[in-house]
């Protein structure tokens, strides 16, 4: 249980630490240290197991479908990294306590640091590749937030985004790689994967896997050509640079290579990809570090270079090289973290990091200077310091590579060259900063030694450098052995850890490097001049420009595609249908089915001809809008006649009523619109639209034809058979509407109700200026309500109500029903509005349309819900024949209450919609204010 605890603790701490923000910076720093301390305590008992070559495992299934489990693993390698993470993390917390300015949000900083720590521990201790990936991406994310901690600095923001883009992108590649591995192995558990190394390497997908995994590792570990993000990440506060970007996070890539070493390494692809990348990074980093005037820039590129070195070591593929690589991880972490901290102190005390201004600090801060000099010496590979040891091993390994012919010279030469650079920039760090005359124009002058406790972390790390350098076998020997053994899968070669191997070729190379470095440093000005001839590439600017270009291009492309043209979207929709339906229809072959065609009678033929003419004329004459409306009425009328002609009286009646209401509605709208549509489309476009329309119409014709001429049987026999005995009505259509498929009707009247409510709401605050006269320039007449019309309209209302009742009551048995009755009532009321005006009519209508809609829906629901009481399903209808004295026998059906609901909803909705539009008119009493919302 202790393993997940170790990982979880920092996260818990991240949540808990801010709670101590009230107690001051020290309190929160202490609180933030607690998780690491507990974690160290928890790890300590495990040491004996590991030293014996054992492994501590924890396994808890989480998402079996994914192959994701909460598996943790503690072996030498993970212990090594975990110790680095925990110990350096502790030092960083202490350091940060003094580094951050009082007004900065230290709680957030510590919380993020702790999150990072947890994520990093997660990476190194995960025993499930997917779990590791989760932590992996989490480190990218937290790193993004930490780099951008100083949000006011543009460079910090940009650096953060660049780091996220590169490492996050690499993470995605890694994800793909891991998934393929899982696919090959059948498990993401590390044990299974490591055991299946041969299987992976033999698999056809191996090159892909390798490339993807290495992409992840290289981006994280800032390998060429992905190195550029790291120096820009130095915009972060220095503790972050020291912790994330030198000691831990950038090592995650290295860790990954170490972790998957048994599974992936040992092939030619591995060798070439890893070692050449490492080599390129090593040289490039070293060269660039030399050129940087920024203290942290120098350290950043030096880190790049050292990461390249470690990568190169892993790439070499020999076991000894792997040991050297692991060893160098430790050494680099110690000296580089201390150097960063020192740089942070200098930055903190002088207010700048420009080495051209910081000079001669020895006089002001000798203590810090001493520490920095020791650490820098270790970086340069000076004997008796830990850097020297691993570098010697590196030199030795570079000689051992079995490359053919002259190629064999390449690794040692490159190694030596890198050594020269490394010495040169180390010397530069020491000499430029602490000696080399006097400070130039420092923002803070004179600099002082930092607070006592701020130096403690540096001191501890420097002490470690020395200890390891002098007593390697005692100090790190066991740990290194455990780690190397875990990396190599138990098969550790013989190696000898001591500060002096005697005089041999590697030592010679060290000498060459040392004196070459001094020489190079002395000639640095030439070197700068040489470099100044080349144009400096600011990766950040390049990255920003690239993002800007991509964004811009995306924006342009989006704007082109999503151009806000309804015509385009509608055309795409119609075309999609045409394209997708074309193939099956083409297969249809003959469109006339088995039943063949029946003859046409003349009146029907003529009516259809009129319909066709009217429809085409509507399209042709659409510019004259009122004319188009008249033609539309003709179409609607003939459609209604068609329903009657083909045995659908209910439909005919519905269509007729709806059509008139629609026309009135359109005219209400047309009042405010231009009465004429201008010509806007080019003739080519009209032709194109015509073509699309013709294809669509032709398609519909063919489909209809094919359908109508085919025999057919449907579920409707049931309706015909049961309508009377079970539904209690002879009008089957009506019984379907209020009973068999009453739920559809409920939905339908809900739609109507919502539409009306929506219309009402939408027009409430709308102001429209009507034109003063019609399209031909006639002013509107003042005679609003002609006398004859008024006189005739009034008696119509009771008559229409009576007819509505009649149509309503017979609906269940004969054509009619609530819907048609509702429309008749509505139309009669509309006539009152037309004849006598809005105010006059509204004064006389005893109810609000809103309530009517609500009441209608309520009736429908109640009619349906009645059956629930008898534990029948919703909308179960019942009917009975009731005999009353004198009145006689009559039928009462619950469906009638439902139909009453339909009736009321239709009236309320229709009138609410129309009246809302009518109310826009400036003549009506309530004049809406301009957009008062």
């Amino acid at each position, binding site marked *: 249980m202790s393993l997940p605890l170790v990982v979880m603790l920092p996260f818990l701490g991240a949540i808990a630490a801010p709670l101590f923000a009230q107690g001051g910076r020290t309190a929160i720093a202490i609180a933030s240290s607690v998780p690491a301390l507990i974690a160290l305590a928890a790890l300590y008992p495990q040491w004996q197991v590991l030293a014996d070559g054992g492994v501590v495992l924890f396994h808890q299934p989480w998402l079996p479908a994914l192959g994701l489990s909460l598996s943790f693993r503690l072996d030498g390698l993970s212990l090594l990294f975990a110790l680095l993470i925990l110990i350096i993390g502790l030092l960083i917390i202490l350091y940060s306590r003094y580094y951050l300015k009082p007004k900065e949000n230290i709680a957030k900083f510590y919380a993020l640091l702790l999150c990072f720590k947890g994520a990093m521990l997660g990476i190194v201790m995960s025993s499930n590749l997917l779990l590791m990936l989760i932590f992996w991406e989490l480190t990218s994310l937290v790193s993004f937030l930490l780099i951008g901690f100083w949000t006011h600095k543009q460079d910090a923001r940009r650096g953060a985004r660049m780091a996220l883009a590169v490492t996050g992108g690499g993470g995605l590649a890694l994800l793909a790689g891991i998934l393929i591995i899982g696919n090959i192995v059948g498990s993401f558990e590390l044990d299974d994967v490591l055991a299946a190394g041969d299987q992976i390497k033999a698999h056809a997908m191996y090159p892909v896997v390798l490339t993807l995994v290495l992409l992840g590792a290289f981006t994280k570990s800032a390998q060429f050509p992905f190195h550029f993000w790291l120096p820009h990440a130095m915009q972060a506060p220095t503790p972050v640079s020291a912790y994330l970007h030198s000691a831990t996070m950038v090592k995650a890539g290295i860790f990954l290579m170490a972790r998957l070493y048994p599974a992936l390494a040992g092939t030619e692809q591995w060798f070439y990809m890893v070692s050449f990348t490492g080599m390129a990074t090593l040289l490039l980093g070293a060269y660039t570090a030399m050129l940087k005037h920024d203290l942290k820039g120098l350290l950043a590129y030096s880190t790049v270079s050292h990461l390249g070195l470690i990568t190169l070591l892993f790439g070499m593929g020999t076991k000894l090289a792997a040991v050297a690589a692991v060893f160098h991880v430790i050494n680099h972490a110690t000296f580089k973290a201390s150097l960063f901290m020192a740089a942070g102190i200098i930055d903190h005390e002088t207010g700048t990091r420009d080495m051209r201004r910081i000079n001669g600090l020895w006089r002001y801060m000798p203590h810090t200077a001493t520490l920095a000099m020791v650490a820098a010496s270790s970086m340069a590979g000076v004997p008796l310091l830990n850097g020297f040891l691993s570098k010697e091993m590196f030199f030795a390994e570079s000689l051992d590579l079995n490359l053919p012919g002259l190629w064999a010279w390449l690794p040692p030469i490159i190694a030596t060259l890198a050594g020269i650079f490394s010495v040169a920039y180390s010397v530069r760090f020491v000499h430029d900063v602490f000696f080399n005359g006097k400070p130039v124009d420092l923002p803070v002058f004179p600099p002082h030694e930092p607070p006592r406790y701020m130096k403690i972390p540096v001191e501890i790390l420097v002490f470690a450098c020395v200890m390891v350098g002098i007593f390697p076998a005692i100090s790190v020997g066991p740990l290194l052995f455990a780690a190397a053994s875990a990396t190599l899968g138990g098969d550790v070669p013989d190696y000898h850890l001591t500060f002096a191997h005697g005089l041999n070729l590697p030592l010679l190379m060290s000498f060459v490097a040392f004196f070459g470095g001094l020489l190079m440093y002395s000639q640095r000005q030439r070197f700068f001049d040489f470099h100044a001839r080349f144009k400096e590439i600011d990766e950040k600017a390049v990255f920003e420009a690239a993002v800007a270009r991509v964004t811009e291009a995306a924006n342009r492309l989006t704007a082109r595609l999503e151009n806000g043209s309804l015509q385009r979207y509608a055309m795409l929709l119609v075309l999609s249908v045409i394209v997708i339906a074309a193939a099956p229809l083409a297969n249809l072959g003959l469109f006339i089915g088995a039943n063949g065609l029946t003859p046409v009678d003349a009146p029907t033929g003529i009516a259809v001809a009129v319909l066709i003419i009217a429809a085409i004329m509507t399209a042709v004459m659409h510019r004259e809008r009122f004319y188009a409306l008249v033609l539309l009425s003709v179409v609607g009328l003939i459609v209604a006649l068609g329903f009657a002609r083909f045995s659908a009286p209910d439909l005919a009646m519905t269509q007729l009523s709806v059509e008139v209401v629609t026309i009135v509605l359109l005219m209400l709208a047309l009042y405010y619109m231009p009465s004429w549509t201008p010509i806007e489309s080019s003739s080519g476009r009209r032709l194109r639209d015509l073509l699309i329309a013709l294809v669509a119409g032709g398609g519909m014709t063919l489909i209809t034809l094919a359908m109508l001429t085919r025999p057919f049987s449907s579920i409707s026999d049931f309706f015909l058979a049961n309508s009377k005995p079970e539904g209690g009505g002879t009008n089957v259509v009506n019984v379907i509407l209020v009973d068999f498929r009453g739920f559809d009707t409920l939905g339908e009247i809900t739609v109507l109700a919502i539409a009306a409510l929506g219309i009402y709401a939408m027009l409430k605050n709308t102001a429209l200026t009507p034109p003063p006269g019609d399209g031909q320039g006639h002013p509107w007449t003042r005679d609003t309500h002609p006398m*004859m019309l008024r006189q005739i309209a009034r*008696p119509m209302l009771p008559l229409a*109500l*009576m007819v509505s009742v*009649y149509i309503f009551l017979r609906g269940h048995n004969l054509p009619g029903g609530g819907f048609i009755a509702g429309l008749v009532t509505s139309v009669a009321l509309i006539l009152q509005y037309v004849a006598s005006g809005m105010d006059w009519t509204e004064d006389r209508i*005893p109810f609000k349309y809103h309530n009517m809609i609500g009441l209608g829906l309520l009736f429908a629901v109640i009619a349906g819900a009645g059956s629930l009481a008898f534990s029948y399903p919703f909308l179960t209808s019942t009917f009975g024949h009731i005999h009353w004295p*004198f009145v*006689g026998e*009559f039928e009462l059906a619950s469906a009638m209450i439902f139909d009453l609901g339909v009736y009321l909803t239709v009236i309320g909705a229709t009138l609410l919609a129309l009246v809302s539009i009518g109310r826009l008119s400036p003549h009506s009493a309530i004049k809406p204010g301009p957009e008062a919302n």
Partner: protein
Amino acid sequence: MLDRLTFPQPWLSLSLFLIWQFLSEGVSGGSVVLGLVLAWAIPQLTQGFWPERPSLLKWWRMPGYLVHVLRDIVVASFEVAALILSARRPRSAFVVYPLELTDPLAITVLAGTISLTPGTVTVDVSDDHKSLLIHALDAESDEEVIHSIRNRYERRLLEMFE
């Protein structure tokens, strides 16, 4: 509450009741009850729409008038049909007809009658309800039109309404 039980427009109620009996297939107990309910309820709902009572005083003369008009329609329809089918160009005219009637309903009935009887259409009623504008399809003279309307229809309506 009791006043709500009255029939505010007894004529209307009666007509509605009768129409309902026609609409229901055959008079029965049910249709009578429902007819009564409707004859009460509908006027209650719509009485607001009738601001003034109709001033039809001698309503029993109405059927005679209607028969008279109907006969005129049939007879004159043939004349118009002949006119439409003939090649002769009709002599159209706009005639202003000075009204003697004052009641709006009466004027409406007259205007309707004029429109329904062939050869003339009421085009407009003046704002002051003092004159009608009539379009005659084929008229020798204005006087003839005015004269015929006055004698055939307006007199009778005057008797009925005022």
